[in-house]
């Protein structure tokens, strides 16, 4: 059976800049802290797009785990020991629809 996915557009709120690896480390460790290795094995988390300058990222997750990813992302208070927060801008079922929504709202 085909696995349904959700694409999440994320905004990093921090005065610092981080590279994609540092950002994903923060997302993974937040998820592992809350849901453990078993939960992490079900999330299907992948980084699709990352812009360090705009502090913007798109990640892909399994659709049943979207709330858990939202909670994990909301629990991030630092990245690489520097204060930060991550907000979900938009969620969509396809990458194309997500980009359309982001362009329509004009928010990065």
């Amino acid at each position, binding site marked *: 059976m085909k696995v349904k996915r959700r694409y999440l557009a994320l905004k990093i*709120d*921090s005065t610092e800049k981080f590279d994609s690896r540092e950002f994903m480390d923060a997302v993974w460790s937040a998820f592992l*802290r*809350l849901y453990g290795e078993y939960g992490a094995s079900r999330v299907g988390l992948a980084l699709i797009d990352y812009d360090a300058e705009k502090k913007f990222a798109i990640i892909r997750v399994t659709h049943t785990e979207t*709330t*858990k990813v*939202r*909670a994990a*992302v*909301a*629990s991030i*208070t630092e990245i690489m020991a520097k*204060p*930060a*927060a991550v*907000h*979900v801008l938009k969620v969509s079922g396809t990458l194309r629809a997500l980009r359309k929504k982001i362009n329509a709202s004009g928010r990065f």
Partner: protein
Amino acid sequence: MRRAFADLHLMPDLSSVEQTRQMFLKASALGYRLIATPLPTSFSENHIQRLRGISQETALDFASRLDLKPKTPKELLYHLRKFRRKFEIIAVICESKTVARQAAKDHRVDLLNFPALDPHKRFFDKAEAELASKSLAALEIDIKPLITLKGSSKIRLLSALRREASIAKDFHMPIVISSGATTELLMRKPLEIAALTSLFDLDRSMAVDAVSKNPLAIVKRNREKLSPNFIAPGIRLIRRGSDCHES
């Protein structure tokens, strides 16, 4: 119609106008329509008007809030008599069981809040919920400790919140989820807060109501009561003066 969201426990440093303005701006950008900030009792009406001015600049509705931290039920009653008509929201930080019981049964109390760091001071139980459900008081849960605590203290807090949320649901007691944020980086979007409540098994519709319908209902009810036209629940003066004919 789009749902309106409220954060009844935003805690900027009120001595810094700039930080307060930044936090209000952030709340507006994150999608909140109404915010409340705990104010000191020494705050004058001028101070409150200044905060209302800042909130209007940022397209937010502002509600005044007082956090009471009484040591005894008698002290709580004294403060309620003195301040109830001066603030739109009264929250009681319950640090003893007797205070928690008194707060739960007093219809002048809007929010019951329990210290997050000490599990022995979380006095919310079935008796408390039953009393509160009759007096319309809501259980307030702050999100800040959920995102700042780590390890065993976070586990203990989640366990206590799961038990309390389940009791509140059983007794149809409203739950209000607030940020408790002291800095901008601790502020979260309403739906992110709702997602965080899944950590203590609050279902999605209850979680969304806890950041929208429930807090807005408290403010609406209290504004009506504080209005000079209020006579009793359901009865209000609709006209006065020379155009009112006496029969």
